[in-house]
């Protein structure tokens, strides 16, 4: 550690070449950092850029109109259906019946487009069977905007589509990129993650307490440590195989949320153990000794003094491991998240999909529009992760104690 040598000392020799080499070396060492940050910026920029596109869409049965900004969703739907030839009565009856209204809204989505051939910020109604005629990248689409607008056919509309919009967050997946959403996957992730943490937290924290506060140097201690170190190095896909063989087949859970949660729970344990141990180790010995001196038993010392003092660090660790579990795609893929799931999960035994798996499936379809859907999905996942990281950062700073 050279903390006291903040700036490396001036050398005694004055060979000018060595001075130059020295300076160049220090700068060259930072190149990888610059390259990595640049790559990160490129990745983010490319994802954001790809999540917008200019499209020509042919309405399957609708009139291909756009609607002014400020109308209510019901009003837009009413006008759209009127234009399709439905009568007033049919429309108002189906809008009043909650079930029919839900189906209607699922099949015909009112979306705010940033720009259309009729002007900026207009609503369009996107039906399930609407067809995309052409898809242009942002730069090309905007450059050729007027040309495209002039060549629109009957019932076609030109839109600047932000793929990541409010309805993308709540929609179920779809075989058409226009109407595909990430809602089911977000719910699946929430279910799987909370059940997985329910397993990983007690086991991880309990193991950390045992190792730090109870066990002396000895056989059990060594076995647990070696085992944990090796578990941390096992690729996540092997956990997926374990889940497939054990939970899906042996326990007969099938491709369910519970099977995925058990698998991810096991995957999360080593991380939680490591971070919890660090938090426990940061609690000074004097605190323990003071508590023992007051006549506290070991259980009282551990659970009333040490664990409360280490809690902020532990919570931060749990949040960080949750962030890691959210991004895991391989294990859920193996325990059955692959299928196309049109329904929101309603319990631990229901079929499911999670956000990274949904993104993988969209990317691997190898269709340009689905790569735009995938970009929107990635932005959602990165937003979830940054939320968790900010929370961890806040907790770390807010509750940090100097002993």
């Amino acid at each position: 550690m050279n903390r006291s040598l903040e700036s490396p000392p001036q050398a005694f020799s004055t060979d000018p070449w060595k001075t130059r080499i020295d300076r160049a070396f220090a700068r060259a060492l930072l190149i990888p950092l610059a390259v990595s940050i640049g790559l990160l910026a490129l990745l983010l920029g490319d994802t954001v850029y790809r999540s917008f596109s200019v499209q020509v869409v042919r309405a399957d049965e609708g009139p291909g109109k756009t609607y002014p900004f400020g109308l209510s969703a019901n009003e837009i739907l009413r006008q759209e259906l009127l234009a399709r030839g439905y009568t007033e009565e049919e429309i108002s009856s189906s809008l009043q019946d909650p079930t029919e209204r839900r189906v209607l809204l699922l099949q015909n989505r009112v979306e705010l487009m940033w720009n259309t051939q009729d002007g900026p910020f207009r609503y369009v109604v996107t039906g399930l069977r609407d067809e995309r005629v052409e898809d242009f990248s942002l730069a090309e689409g905007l450059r050729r905007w007027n040309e495209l607008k002039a060549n629109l056919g009957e019932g076609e509309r030109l839109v600047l589509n932000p793929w990541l919009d409010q309805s993308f967050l709540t929609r179920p997946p779809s075989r058409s990129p226009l109407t595909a959403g990430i809602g089911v996957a977000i719910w699946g992730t929430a279910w799987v993650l909370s059940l997985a943490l329910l397993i990983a937290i007690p086991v991880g924290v309990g193991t950390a307490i045992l190792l730090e506060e109870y066990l002396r140097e000895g056989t059990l201690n060594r076995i647990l440590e070696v085992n944990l170190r090796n578990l941390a190095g096992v690729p996540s896909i092997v956990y997926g195989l374990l889940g497939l063989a054990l939970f899906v087949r042996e326990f007969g859970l099938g491709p369910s949320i519970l099977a995925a949660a058990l698998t991810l729970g096991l995957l999360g344990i080593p991380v939680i153990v490591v971070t919890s141990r660090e938090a426990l180790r940061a609690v000074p010995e004097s605190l323990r000794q003071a508590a023992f001196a007051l006549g506290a038993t070991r259980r009282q010392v551990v659970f009333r003094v040490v664990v409360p003092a280490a809690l902020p660090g532990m919570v931060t660790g749990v949040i960080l491991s949750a962030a890691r579990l959210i991004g895991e795609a391989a294990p859920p893929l193996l325990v059955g998240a692959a299928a196309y799931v049109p329904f929101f999960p309603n319990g631990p035994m229901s079929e499911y999909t999670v956000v990274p798996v949904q993104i993988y499936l969209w990317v691997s379809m190898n269709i340009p529009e689905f790569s735009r859907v995938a970009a929107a999905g990635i932005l959602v996942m990165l937003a979830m992760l940054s939320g968790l990281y900010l929370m961890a950062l806040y907790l770390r700073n807010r509750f940090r104690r100097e002993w």
Partner: protein
Amino acid sequence: MEILKQRPSRNPKEVLTFVLLVSLSSVTLLTTLGVILSLVGDVVQFFRRVPLLEFLLAPEWTPLFAEPRYGIAPLIAGTFLVTAIALLVAIPLGLSLAIYLAEYASGSTRPRIKGTLELFEGIPTVVFGYFALLFVTPLLQWAIPDLNIFNPLSAGLVMGFAIIPYVSNVAADAMESVPRSIREAAYALGARPYEVALRVVFPAAISGIIAAIILATSRAIGETMIVAIAAGQRPTLTLDPRETIATMTSYIVQAATGDQPTGSTAFYALFAVGFTLFLLTLLLNILAQWVVERYRERYE
């Protein structure tokens, strides 16, 4: 503290707490056991149908053909290729970052650099896969015209960046634990900072640095989503980075998402590949620990 730990208690509540903690932590042992047992059962099934020699020596991996061949060589070659490309990126970049962190970074820039690296580590690999396929591959195709859409080159390059933190964190820890007295001795002899870093600290920390590289190799071998997305899923026995290949991990993903009836040889092949992967990464991890123990320079 060791002294305070040495009084076993007879109080039932104390004993109960201890038993509870031990049973919780036994889950970690059961996990290892579960991984091994669940894989071994299916691996045995596999080798009842396919001779070990074919698995090791046959040059083709075609479980879904009418006349299936089960030679792991193409998958190993694919894994090796992607890993080698990733390490070519990660070792120089990661090690220079580690040197900077340990020798040059001041007290305030160190946590910032480490924070950036953590950020890199936190990005889900499916995002890197997307980036490799849709951004890096078109870029590379512009430079290398006969590059396949799915190729190990772009997957390996992007994976190299993804594993930089694994190299730099462990290597920086190793270099930071080299005692200051050695550095100061070198400075006193008139050495320049770069000479101290390269000729004194680097050799002194070599065991930790090698361990860092081995651990990163193990990560690269087990990395799944980047290769599954960007490197393709066609097992080919080649070392040409322009060809579409399959790695062990990408084959597992492909097989698990396809429909293979439970109990077919192709289904058990999944576990045979998984077990090979497990053994390989486990061996590398043990090797890394052994290197650290065996070649650590001790300064007492």
